[in-house]
């Protein structure tokens, strides 16, 4: 096997996982974890300069290169945050050394699985990778072994497995549709072959396949009404995992869905996937926006916010067209960066306060100004206020929708405003007012959080033309 960017993003996490599984000691392993994610990020960046020729198993094009860079970047910053966070968990005895070793190994396995799902050209391989990512996150969600953590992991496992099973059925149906045209064997599962010849596939089979894939991978995206696992899994696992779930795993599942959407778009007789995605997207947005009001757990609050934003992104891709796709891509990038930054802040806040109950925290800007203002900045960004990056992407989604389907745009804006209200209601009691709960000094790593927020801020104020051109190019690919 030749060494290049693609094998790099797969082999480095795989090798690091093996190494971290056997090495003792917290300090060294946390550093190796960071080192491995750094190297993976460098390999991912090299994909901009040169890529291998697509084979029957692996493929890199402009679309997944964007996803890979985003994934490895957030994976890298989260590993930096995780080093401090897990150190604290170890110090207060919530985790024991064997569990930390297990956690680090699993972190790398997860990175491997996510990257594999992104570079897979074979739809069967892509399915295997997403299944692997699900199983590793199930194990990590249950790592604290409390009642709630086990229940959350079990629920996530059952719902995730059902989703993944439906997705496999859809994958088999795609093969069935391709077989008469492409012929038996490996080629009929290779995405780049399928998309070229999808025009001749049986449209009825393709439609049915997409329904299963939408339900299956849609469960992993967290679209309502298939979202039930998401808030529990986010709330009960270690916070770095909440950040990775929200920032990366949901995106990867959506990426799988997009690949199949492109397949359907190549067949004029097949059903248009857009309206289905638009409906699920809007439903998720409005539902999650209302759910924000009754949350009492801070991580659950932001988990619902993730459902809301995945709804917006799915909606944008469902609308399709160059502008909406551009907005969807931008929104996805901004959401990943912002949401993981928020979870970095929330993780430290929960550690200082010793609880995740919103009622037990307050006056954060007084007691922990850096954490408090970081959290405020993150929430302002995620609520879509100017001048931050999410404002721009939401503005693009709304304006492109107004031009094409004003009625849908009204629902969209309604959902956004409801969500804004819900977030600020909660933020107010966390950040301002009388300080509540312990006020010990926080042992926090601020760099990852503020690095993300700076990127989101810069993107809101000034987008480099090269980046705009790149996103436009990728949006064009999505059709």
């Amino acid at each position: 096997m030749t060494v290049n960017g693609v094998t790099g993003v797969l082999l480095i996490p795989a090798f690091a996982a093996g190494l971290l599984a056997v090495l003792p000691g917290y300090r060294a392993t946390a550093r190796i974890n960071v080192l491995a994610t750094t190297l993976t990020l460098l390999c991912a960046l090299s994909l901009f300069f040169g890529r291998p020729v697509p084979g029957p198993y692996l493929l890199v094009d402009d679309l997944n290169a964007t996803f890979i860079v985003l994934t490895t970047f957030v994976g890298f910053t989260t590993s930096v945050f995780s080093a401090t966070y897990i150190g604290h968990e170890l110090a207060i005895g919530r985790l024991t050394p064997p569990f930390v070793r297990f956690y680090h190994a699993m972190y790398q396995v997860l990175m491997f699985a996510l990257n594999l799902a992104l570079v897979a050209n074979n739809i069967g391989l892509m399915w295997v990778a997403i299944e692997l990512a699900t199983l590793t996150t199930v194990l990590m969600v249950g790592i604290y072994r409390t009642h709630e953590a086990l229940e959350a992991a079990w629920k996530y496992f059952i719902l995730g497995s059902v989703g993944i099973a439906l997705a496999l059925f859809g994958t088999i149906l795609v093969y069935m549709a391709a077989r008469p045209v492409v012929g038996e064997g490996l080629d009929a599962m290779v995405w780049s072959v399928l998309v070229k010849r999808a025009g001749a596939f049986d449209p009825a089979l393709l439609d049915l396949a997409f329904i299963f894939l939408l339900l299956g991978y849609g469960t992993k995206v967290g679209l309502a009404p298939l979202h039930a696992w998401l808030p529990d899994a986010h709330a009960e696992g270690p916070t770095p995992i909440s950040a990775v779930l929200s920032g990366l795993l949901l995106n990867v599942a959506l990426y799988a869905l997009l690949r199949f959407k492109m397949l359907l778009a190549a067949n004029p007789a097949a059903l248009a996937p857009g309206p289905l995605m638009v409906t699920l997207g809007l439903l998720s947005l409005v539902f999650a926006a209302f759910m924000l009001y009754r949350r009492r757990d801070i991580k659950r609050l932001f988990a619902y916010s993730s459902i809301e934003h995945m709804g917006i992104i799915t909606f944008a891709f469902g609308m399709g067209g160059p502008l909406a796709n551009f907005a969807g891509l931008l929104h996805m990038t901004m959401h990943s960066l912002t949401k993981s930054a928020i979870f970095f802040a929330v993780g430290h806040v929960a550690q200082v306060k010793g609880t995740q109950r919103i009622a037990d925290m307050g006056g954060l800007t007084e007691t922990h100004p850096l954490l408090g203002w970081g959290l405020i900045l993150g929430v302002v960004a995620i609520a879509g206020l100017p001048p931050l990056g999410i404002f721009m992407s939401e503005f693009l989604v709304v304006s492109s929708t107004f031009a094409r389907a004003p009625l849908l745009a009204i629902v969209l804006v309604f959902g956004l405003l409801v969500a804004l209200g819900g977030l600020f209601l909660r933020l107010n009691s966390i950040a301002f007012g009388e300080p509540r709960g312990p006020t010990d000094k926080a042992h926090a790593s601020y760099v990852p959080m503020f690095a993300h927020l700076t990127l989101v801020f810069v993107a809101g104020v000034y987008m480099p033309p090269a980046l705009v051109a790149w996103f436009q190019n990728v949006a064009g690919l999505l059709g």
Partner: protein
Amino acid sequence: MSTIDFDVAHVLAGSLVLISFLELYQDRLYSLLNVYAAHALVLAASVAWQAFIQDAPHLYVTAMIALVFKAIIIPVALHRMIVKLGIHREIEKVVGVGLAMLAGIGLVALSMVVMLRVTQQAGRLAQEDLAFALSVVLLGLLMMVTRRNAVSQVVGFMSLENGLVLAATGAKGMPLVVEISVAFSILIAFIVIGIFLFRIRERFDTVDMQVIDSFRGEHR
């Protein structure tokens, strides 16, 4: 294709659906596991028959995995676990047997209507196979939602996976990658479940999901 090829495949796939129905109304864990073992056994026979008529020797591997792993090792292991945990009593059901069976019949009818219409170009054998496979998948799902006990939910999930294997082998010439990965993922999934069951016991002294559900955080 000769008629006998089709007939045998049809009988085996049909039996799988029938056994899924049998699973639906078992009210003891031991008998449920026995029925599941029969389910896996029929699956193994069905896959082996497909290997024979499609002249695809690699499918024999899948059949062997179904036979050894799903029909023998898993039921025995679960059996032991049940004895160890002391939970071989009646299974708590969410809905009654009658209602579950009616829902099951409805689901099978649905999958027949949908699959037979959609797969007309796929060939008669593949058409029947896919329709039966979807029925097995949906019945597995039904079982997962009508049971409260963690072990029977796992059994529901495994029979759902059996339906997927049936579909994958019915799709002629589907690359081996997928079959092995399916088998593999079941293995991994099972280990995960095993760990969970163990820990659930350790923490709650029950594997009844309703008790665990009372810890759920809807109110938070």
